[in-house]
C-alpha cells in the first residue's frame, strides 16, 4: 500500500477514536483538556502555515484574540448561533490579517518578526482600552447555546480536525508548492510572474482564519476571556508546539500541542509556574530536539514504512525549512 493511504487510514481511525472518546468517554475535565489541545493545535497549525512562506508570524496571537472577541460579541451580545459566531471569528481574523499583511509583508525576516510582535502587543493594548468589551476585565458568559452544550467538546474536535485537514490539503496543493517556493527564493518566484506579496497575504489570511476560529473555540470553551489571554505568548506557545512537535509535518504541530498541553496541565497541578516550564521546555528543545517529536516518530517508524512504501518520498515542509 502506498504510504499515503496507510497514513490516511491511520489518521481516520485515530480521528474517530478521539471523537468517540470525547463524546462518551471523557469526563468534564478530560473534555476540557481535549478542547484545550484542539485550540492549541489550531494556533500551532496557523503559525506553521505562515512558516511555509518563510515568516514567523507573532501576530497569530492578535488574530486569535480578535476571533475570540468577535465570537464572544456574536454569542453574548447578539445571541447568534455557534456556527455563525465561529465563521464570523474566522473572517474577522482573516480580514484584519489582510490589512496587516498588505503593509507588513513587504518586509521579511527579522523586520516582519518584530512588527508582528509589536502588532500582537498593540492588539492586546487595544483590547484593554475598549470598555464595551470589558477593557481589562474582559468578557464573561460565553456559552454555546443550550442544546449544543453537551456536544460542544465534540464540535470543537470536529471543527479543529476539519480546519487542520483543510490546511494540510492546501499545503500539499500547488498553492503550497508556491508558498515553499517563496520561502526558498522569492526573487525567482517574482521572475516567473507571480505577485509574491499577494500570495503571502493569501497565506496569512488563511492562517489567520484558522487562528480566529481557534480563538472563538477557546472563548466558548473557557466561557471567559480577557486581554491578558491574548499576549504575544500565544504565538510563543504555538511556536513551542510546532518546534517540539516537529516542523516538518502538520501532525507535528498537533503532537506538540498534545504533548505540551498535557505536560503543562500536569505541571500546573503540581504548582509550577507556567512561564518557567514553557521557557525551560523551549530552551531544552532548541538544544537537544531539533527535529521534534514528529522527527523521532518518523525515525522510529521508518523501517515499517519502508516495507509498505512503493511510492517515491514526497517533498515536505521539512525539506524546505532545512537550513
Amino acid at each position, binding site marked *: 500500500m502506498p504510504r499515503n493511504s496507510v497514513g490516511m487510514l491511520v489518521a481516520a481511525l485515530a480521528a474517530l477514536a478521539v471523537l468517540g472518546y470525547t463524546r462518551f468517554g471523557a469526563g468534564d475535565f478530560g473534555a476540557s483538556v481535549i478542547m484545550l489541545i484542539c485550540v492549541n493545535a489550531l494556533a500551532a497549525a496557523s503559525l506553521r502555515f505562515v512558516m511555509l512562506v518563510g515568516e514567523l508570524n507573532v501576530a497569530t496571537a492578535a488574530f486569535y484574540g480578535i476571533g475570540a472577541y468577535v465570537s464572544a460579541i456574536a454569542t453574548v451580545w447578539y445571541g447568534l448561533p455557534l456556527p455563525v459566531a465561529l465563521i464570523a471569528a474566522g473572517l474577522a481574523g482573516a480580514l484584519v490579517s489582510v490589512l496587516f499583511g498588505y503593509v507588513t509583508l513587504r518586509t521579511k525576516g527579522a523586520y516582519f518578526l518584530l512588527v508582528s510582535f509589536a502588532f500582537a502587543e498593540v492588539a492586546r493594548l487595544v483590547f484593554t482600552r475598549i470598555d464595551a468589551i470589558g477593557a481589562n476585565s474582559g468578557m464573561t458568559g460565553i456559552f454555546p447555546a443550550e442544546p449544543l452544550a453537551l456536544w460542544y467538546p465534540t464540535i470543537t474536535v470536529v471543527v479543529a480536525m476539519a480546519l487542520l485537514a483543510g490546511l494540510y490539503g492546501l499545503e500539499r496543493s*500547488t498553492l503550497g*508548492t*508556491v508558498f*515553499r*517556493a517563496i520561502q*526558498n*527564493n522569492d*526573487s*525567482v*518566484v*517574482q*521572475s*516567473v*510572474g*507571480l*505577485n*509574491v506579496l499577494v500570495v503571502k497575504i493569501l497565506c496569512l489570511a488563511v492562517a489567520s482564519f484558522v487562528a480566529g476560529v481557534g480563538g472563538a473555540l477557546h472563548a466558548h470553551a473557557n466561557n471567559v476571556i480577557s486581554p491578558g489571554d491574548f499576549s504575544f505568548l500565544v504565538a510563543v506557545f504555538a511556536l513551542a508546539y510546532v518546534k517540539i512537535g516537529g516542523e516538518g509535518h502538520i501532525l507535528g504541530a498537533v503532537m506538540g500541542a498534545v504533548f505540551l498541553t498535557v505536560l503543562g496541565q500536569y505541571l500546573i497541578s503540581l504548582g509550577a509556574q507556567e512561564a518557567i516550564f514553557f521557557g525551560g521546555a523551549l530552551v531544552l528543545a532548541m538544544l537537544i530536539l531539533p527535529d521534534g517529536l514528529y522527527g523521532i516518530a518518523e525515525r522510529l517508524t521508518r523501517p515499517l514504512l519502508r516495507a509498505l512504501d512503493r511510492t*517515491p518520498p514526497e*517533498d515536505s515542509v521539512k*525539506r*524546505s*525549512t*532545512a537550513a
Partner: protein
Amino acid sequence: MSAPTGTAAPVLTAQGLQRRFGGIMAVADVSFEIWPNEILGLIGPNGAGKSTIFNLLSGFYRPHNGRLRFFGEDITGRTPSQISRKGLVRTFQHDSLLRDMSVYDNILVATVSTVRDRQARHRRVEETADLLGLTDVLAELARNLPHGHQRMLGVAIALATRPKLLCLDECLTGLNLTEVGRALEIIRQIREEFGIAILFVEHNMRAVMQICDRIVVLHHGLLLAEGTPEEVSRDPKVLEAYLGSKR
C-alpha cells in the same frame, strides 16, 4: 538568422537607461533594441553594468532615467512579476533556483502564472525538462544537482513561462567545453522552436561569438559598440576595453 529589418517592430527598446548607486553611475546612458527572433549578446568587462541592465529590464531595479518599451508598451517602473507576465523573463546569475525543492517543483512553479490547468501544467513541465535535458532528474532536489544541470534548470524555470523575450544571465558559468556546446545547441533549439528573442549575457567570448546574431558592448555604464560578432571583434574600442584579448 535574422538581421534587424526596418519593417518589423523591436521586441524591446531601451532608451537612455540610467541607474546610480550612491555616488556610482552603474548605468549612465544606455540605449539599444532587441529584434524579433534574434539572439543579442550583452558583453563587457567586469563592472561594466551588465547585471544592472538585467535588473533594470526585468524590473528588479527602477531606472533613474530612461524608458523601456516591450512590444511598444511602456514597461518602465513596472514590477518584476508584471514584466514577467508580459513575456520578458530572466534567469539569475547567482542564487537562481529553489534549492530545497525538486526539479519538477522548480519548473512547476514557473508554470503557475501562465497555465491554468493541472494536466497542462504537468505537460509543460515535462516538455520543458525534456528540452533542457532534465527529464532524468525531475525528482532530485535542486541543490543536489551537478552544476551543469543547475544552470540548465535555471533556464528551464524561465522557459517554462513560455516568454517572448528570454534573458539569460551568465548561464554558462562553470560549464565545461562539452556542456557549453550542449547548452548552445539547446539555446538555438529554443529560439527555433519558440520563435522568441534571446538576450544573452556572457563572459565566455567564444560562446558569444558562436551564438549571437548581434552584440552590444558595455563599458563603464555606457554603450561602447554595437554590431555583428565580426564587427565587434574588430572594433578597436572594444579591443582596448578588453586589453586586446578575445578569449
